[in-house]
């Protein structure tokens, strides 16, 4: 069904994410199937005459391996579920914000939560001039919204509200959970590929050579191809899910704030100033990630242009250039890098050198 407006657009993207997520178990089973087939061709397993053909044998072996695969996935998920929170808390090094310290952001977030009747997530800040934000937490009571100091300094009220709305939408949609599931599947597939390559490298298939010499080469070839395709596809699916979730969160933010223009302005403002050092697996959670990757296939986020275009097409937004620094200007000497300050033509600050923020929490 075509998207007619914001709500139908959100539904369509949710369906897309679900289909992509189902792609993971299918990919996993497909890899097992082709590996088994390879082993039969190579003569490492008995030929399939008894089962009615090689393919039928591989299929039946694949199904008998399925419960094992599911069990591994579940155990992995449970472990990741409990450690994810601790890892993020440790990695970000962010500080919780109180109402007194930052009344503006705190009140905006609280109002958004009241309008949706939800418990307010913890508001946290990372002390850097870069502009980014992310939502984390896997279950009620542990949700938090983290913003950088750069965002608090540079955004006007309605833009900051749009950013908080975006992160709150991630929480409402339980996107962190979706991305954890996706990264676990991708992790299992990656592990499988690594086992294949190590086995080939160390020649552990060599032992079988005595039985049916010469054919192991066929299996190694099949395993290499299957491993390579599976490895790439796993990453592509995972990133595609991440991108659909970003579109949904943009639209969700507009539904919360009723102001598509502010979301567009916020995206324009952070574009190019959103760099945070972080492992790939965490970047997917950010408000914006500039790292494009090959043809956008490996990017965690859609390009800002596409996000703006979607907001204009489905959210009725207007693309207006952000005004000069809105927040009743903190003295420039305190924040030379508040980024929206008119930069000299070569993109450098008035001090002629791009001052980097304090060492990133992941540095």
């Amino acid at each position: 069904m075509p998207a007619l407006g914001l709500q139908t657009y959100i539904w369509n993207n949710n369906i897309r994410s679900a289909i992509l997520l189902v792609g993971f178990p299918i990919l996993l089973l497909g890899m097992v199937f082709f590996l088994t087939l390879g082993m039969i061709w190579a003569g490492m397993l008995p030929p399939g005459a008894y089962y009615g053909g090689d393919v039928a044998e591989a299929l039946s072996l694949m199904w008998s391996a399925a419960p094992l695969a599911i069990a591994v996935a579940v155990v992995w998920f449970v472990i990741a579920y409990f450690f994810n929170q601790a890892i993020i808390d440790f990695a970000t090094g962010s500080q919780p914000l109180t109402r007194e310290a930052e009344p503006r952001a705190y009140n905006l977030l609280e109002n958004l939560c009241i309008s949706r009747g939800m418990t307010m997530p913890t508001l946290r800040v990372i002390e850097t001039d870069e502009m980014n934000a992310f939502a984390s937490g896997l279950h009620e009571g542990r949700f938090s919204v983290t913003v950088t100091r750069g965002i608090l300094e540079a955004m006007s009220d309605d833009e900051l509200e749009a950013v908080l709305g975006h992160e709150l939408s991630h929480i409402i949609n339980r996107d962190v959970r979706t991305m954890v599931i996706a990264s676990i599947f991708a992790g299992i597939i990656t592990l499988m590929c690594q086992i294949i390559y190590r086995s080939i490298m160390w020649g552990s298939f060599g032992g079988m050579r005595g039985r049916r010499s010469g054919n192991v080469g066929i299996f190694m070839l099949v395993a290499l191809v299957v491993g390579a395709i599976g490895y790439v596809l796993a990453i592509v699916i995972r990133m595609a899910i991440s991108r659909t979730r970003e579109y949904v969160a943009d639209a969700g933010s507009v539904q919360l704030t009723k102001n598509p223009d502010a979301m567009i302005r916020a995206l324009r403002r952070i574009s190019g100033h959103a760099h945070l050092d972080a492992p790939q697996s965490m970047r997917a959670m950010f408000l914006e990630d500039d790292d494009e990757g090959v043809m956008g296939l490996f990017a965690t986020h859609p390009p800002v242009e596409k996000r703006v275009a979607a907001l204009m097409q489905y959210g009725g937004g207007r693309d207006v250039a952000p005004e000069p620094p809105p927040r009743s200007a903190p003295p420039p000497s305190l924040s030379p890098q508040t980024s929206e300050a008119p930069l000299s033509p070569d993109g450098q600050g008035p001090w002629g050198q791009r001052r980097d923020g304090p060492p990133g929490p992941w540095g």
Partner: protein
Amino acid sequence: MLALVILIAIVVLIGILFIGAYNRLVALRQNVNEAFADIDVQLKQRQDLVPNLVETVKGYAAHERGTLDEVTQARAAAANAGNIEQRAQAENALTGALGRLMAVAEAYPDLKANQNFLQLQGELSDLENKIAAARRFFNNAVGEYNASIQRFPAVLIAGMTGFASRDFFDVGPDRAALQTAPQVKFS
């Protein structure tokens, strides 16, 4: 036997599709209602602001009676408007009247220096921006809802269960009048 199972399966499938389409329409209609409630809140805030503003201006420019009365009347009309179309018209008239009042205020330096007036002016312009944004969100939701109830499978359900198309909250023909500069009279 098999035919019966297939028949039941088809009926169940159609039923599920039917329920799904109906629930989508309900959600879209609810979106429209929520969006209107949001405009309503902003418009009410603006109406509450008007008496304060009128009183403040009166203190400095009491003889601008025509403009002041116009604002007061437009506010009363907006507060009592019935359906969405009348409401939109009345609110647009109020926007126009407030614009003219602000233009008149330009002629009174004392008034422009009044702290209270400046604060009200700031609040008003903030509200106008919010109203504009909320109205576009509302119209977007109405457009989506109206288009959805006219599409094929949904149009059957919409006809049976009484989903009527909704009016836009539009600036309408007054748009031209709003965009011409208000006349400043010195009487």
